[in-house]
């Protein structure tokens, strides 16, 4: 734990990505404040802030209460091109996690791509953000978890084998396609909504490709 922590600390120093600012609203986002060292914290008189503590690894299902205790500034950004996201403080703003989970957070500058997902035979409808997936495998895994079913293996010729369900989507032209037919990036930009088809209809669609 210690080694990964110090490695991460070095990364932060190199990245200059701390997003805590004292600037007035409208101050340029690129202004950075150097990380306050642990030793200096008690000496700093005017600063009201605690020193930036090292973020912990995300522990899931956290039996370790450490991941919940400290004022963690999670660096939500990765090495993407858009401007670095502001660090998130745990529990701020004070919104109940129930509410946070129910609402979809507007994704950043690029904008999230939310599509509705429906499943045949079920009255419920879900919404997902295609931007959060890196590719088809993650998307399909997520759908499987969401609807508690297994989607078969994709093959170009035969569609989805091995299960009754096949994921389809409606594209910009209003055509229903099988998920996986086009490259991922093209899919993300052209997909209007998703529908998990069941049974023969699903198989029929696969063959039509």
């Amino acid at each position: 734990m210690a080694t990964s922590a110090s490695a991460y600390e070095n990364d932060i120093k190199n990245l200059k990505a701390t997003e805590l600012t004292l600037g007035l609203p409208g101050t340029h986002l690129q202004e950075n404040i150097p990380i306050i060292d642990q030793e200096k914290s008690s000496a700093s008189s005017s600063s009201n802030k605690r020193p930036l503590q090292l973020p912990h690894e995300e522990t899931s299902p956290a039996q370790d209460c450490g991941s919940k205790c400290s004022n963690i500034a999670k660096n939500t950004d990765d090495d993407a091109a858009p401007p670095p996201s502001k660090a998130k403080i745990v529990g701020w703003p004070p919104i109940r996690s129930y509410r946070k989970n129910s609402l979809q957070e507007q994704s950043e500058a690029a904008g999230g791509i939310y599509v509705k997902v429906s499943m045949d035979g079920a009255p419920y409808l879900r919404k997902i953000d295609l931007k959060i997936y890196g590719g088809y495998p993650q998307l399909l895994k997520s759908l499987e978890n969401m609807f508690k079913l297994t989607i078969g293996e994709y093959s170009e010729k035969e569609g989805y084998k091995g299960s009754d369900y096949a994921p389809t989507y409606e594209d910009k032209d209003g055509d229903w396609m099988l998920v996986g037919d086009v490259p991922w990036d093209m899919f993300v930009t052209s997909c209007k909504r998703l529908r998990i088809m069941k049974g023969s209809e699903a198989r029929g669609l696969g063959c039509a490709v």
Partner: protein
Amino acid sequence: MTHSGSSLPDLPNCTSTAAPMSEIRSPPPDRVLEIVLENVLHFLTCRRDRNAASLVCRSWCRAEALTRSDLFIGNCYAVSPHRATSRFRRVRSLTVKGKPRFADFDLLPLNWGAHFSPWGSALADAYPWLEKLHLKRMSLTDDDLNLIARSFPSFKELVLVCCEGFGIAGIAAVAANCRLLRVLDLVESVVEDADEDEEVMDWISCFPDGETHLESLVFECVECPVNFEALERLVARSPYLKKLRLNHYVSIPQLYRLMHRAPQLTHLGTGSFCASDDVAVGDQELDYSSAFAACKSLVCLSGFRDILPDYLPAIYPACANLTSLNLSYADVNADQLKPVILQCHKLQTLWVLDSICDEGLQAVAATCKDLRELRVFPGNTREEAEGPVSEVGLEVISQGCRKLQSILFFCQRMTNAAVIAMSKNCPDLVVFRLCIIGRYRPDPETHEPMDDGFGAIVMNCKKLTRLAVSGLLTDQAFRYIGMYGKLLRTLSVAFAGDSDQGLKYVLEGCPNLQKLEIRDSPFGDAALHSGLHHFYNMRFLWMSTCKLTRQGCQEIARALPHLALEVIDSQEDKADDHIEILYMYRSLDRPRNDAPKCVTILQ
């Protein structure tokens, strides 16, 4: 009102329903006074009055204890279940609150506590006649729910708010066994999903056949599909059902059917408010507004998850009668909201997302003259320079909604002027909670701290009991609070203040303070010390990421033996003595023994 037993002819209008009276013609002299007292105390329903009565003398304390049927435990660790049930023998309705509020924001470690089990077993023994149980921020398991379901034959009402640890199986047990159930309200609670391999239990079908006594069924937070046919049958055989709040697995065509089954509904949570994709658009579209027209008694609407804004006009027929509207889960913009708002003349409670914009708040101000409570939640929780609502919206609301009593307002920018305006325009304010999402943000026009705004609130709003502050605040803000916040009971502070003096002002100045929650503020041991005279009067104090040391807390613990000081720390060995979280509360009993490892209880 009827005559009581003939032994007391000179006391008309006495009813004794609290304790079973013996049939003795003339009770012994020392009992006469107690019987009189019990009869009189029966009329005291407010718990604060009862607490005062119980302090008069021993016999009043006894009489009061025997006649209290509604027991409120504000902190489950303040008193042991055994002590509570030993003193109050005839409780029919119990409310227990567990975790501190900051647990809602993930600031408390998992498994911290607030387990219901010890209470469950004590209640099963002591109050077999228990009818109502309200729990908030408690951790309870399916076994606990099973116990509740089987231990209380007269059980009528279960309300679980922000609870966790249980699943569908527990709910099913309650549905199946509590034959007299009137209220089953599951509010913002985490209901564990079934395991991947298991079928989701159909708890709706567990309600017994035949007519039910159900008056309220709230299950918005239950995150799994329900058997709709069973739900429809249940609603059809529940003639007393007034409140129905569905989860988002119920689609709008299904809602339509339910509403036609239950036109007597007064409170409705709409579920998803969009159609399933099985129905192609334009294909047999039902007239949803007819359903809202049919429910002539609707006064409260909520839900609207996954809303398709096209369907929003369906609620128009109900708008004129609505007193409460919760659109805070509805992703709709100002243009879609305004036509709704403009029809809601009787609205007293409104919860919305900030997507309503200042413009939408203008419509609220113009239309909802009776508004008492407003909550504006953020759609985006990032710290931005601008947001859809601002000081403009707040000011406009203050001008239009003069009867406002409670406000919770999230925004990215706010001026002192607007807050001062609200303090003058809305003198009835009891709750003022302003959350400027950008931390340490000053007034964007004057570049001053927000001290004066909050100062005006405590000064002008003479009925204020709850306050939450934000923005750039110096010790001056706390000086105002200490000076004027004499009725203040709850105070929430985050990222504010300069020095110990700030907290001192509050602890020395606010005699009614009961709940104080502070995070990320530079208050240390000296400040904490200044509250010694007051801590026994408080329900709790929470301080996280402040400047407290273990040594400082230890001194408080030594000085006040009936305080439990929970020090919560994630790191074992640290360079300095500073602690992360202090959660402190008065307690009549020994420190709890169910705390996780990261919690140390100082004595």
